[in-house]
């Protein structure tokens, strides 16, 4: 049996992602976990604002701005985790996930956090992402997740544009 993954407007304030099988649910549940910056991805999540050229600005940034960014990223992950707890089982149609409009940017950001963390940790650059990573490669699953999360980001961004027009 095949299920079609779709993102549709449920009502004026909510989008629904439906047709989720257990594998895709697992992929979604991984977003908040993967998006947590670790040692390897911290430099990408909190880069120098001056490229290392202004020591004083960098120092002030680390003291005052970085904690704010950490808080924002954490709020994003928590918001996604809360939405994921409300997934519904629709039997043969798979699981459904509601994404409230007020959380849409959180989802777009959260997906981005996960993509960036995966790419940093697995050393996936432009070349690797443009070509198909061989399935037997250790980074194959990471590359797949990056593409999947990118697809969901595109869908949410498209919905954004459609609503604005």
């Amino acid at each position, binding site marked *: 049996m095949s299920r079609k993954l779709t993102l549709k407007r449920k009502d004026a304030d909510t989008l629904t992602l439906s047709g989720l099988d257990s594998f895709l649910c697992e992929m979604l549940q991984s977003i908040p976990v993967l998006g947590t910056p670790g040692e390897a991805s911290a430099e990408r999540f909190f*880069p120098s604002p001056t490229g290392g050229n202004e020591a004083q600005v960098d120092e002030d940034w680390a003291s005052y701005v970085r904690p704010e960014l950490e808080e924002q990223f954490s709020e994003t992950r928590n918001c996604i985790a809360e939405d994921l707890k409300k997934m519904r089982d629709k039997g043969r149609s798979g699981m459904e996930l509601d994404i409230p409009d007020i959380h849409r940017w959180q989802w777009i950001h959260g997906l*981005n956090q996960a993509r960036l963390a995966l790419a940093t940790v697995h050393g996936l650059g432009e070349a690797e992402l443009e070509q198909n990573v061989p399935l037997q490669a250790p980074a194959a699953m990471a590359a797949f997740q990056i593409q999947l999360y990118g697809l969901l980001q595109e869908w949410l961004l498209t919905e954004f544009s459609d609503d604005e027009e």
Partner: protein
Amino acid sequence: MKDTPMELLQIRVLGLIQAPVGFVEDSRVIAALEAPELDDLVALDVPWNVVVHNDPVNLMSYVTKVFQKVFGFSKERAEKHMMEVHKLGRSIVWTGAQEKAEFYVQELHSNLLLATLEKSV
């Protein structure tokens, strides 16, 4: 004879220093108003660029949308800067006062774009 640019700058700087002091009557406040060094004021005037750098992971549509959200750019202008980042590796998206430039870089970092500040010289 016209004033040279440096003379004009000095007149403006002196005006900045002297104007508020003349209106302050409390001597303790006057003492607290320490005249800034000329170099400091000149440094404040140096514009800063906000530069966005290429990143292999961020989607082009995402970068465009962030430019629209952060700077209020039209879609066309946002796409122009996004393509500049994509093709040339970087794009200067804003130039102005340091404090505002820092604000914009923070906004871009909060959207996980690679952005830096640099003095515009």
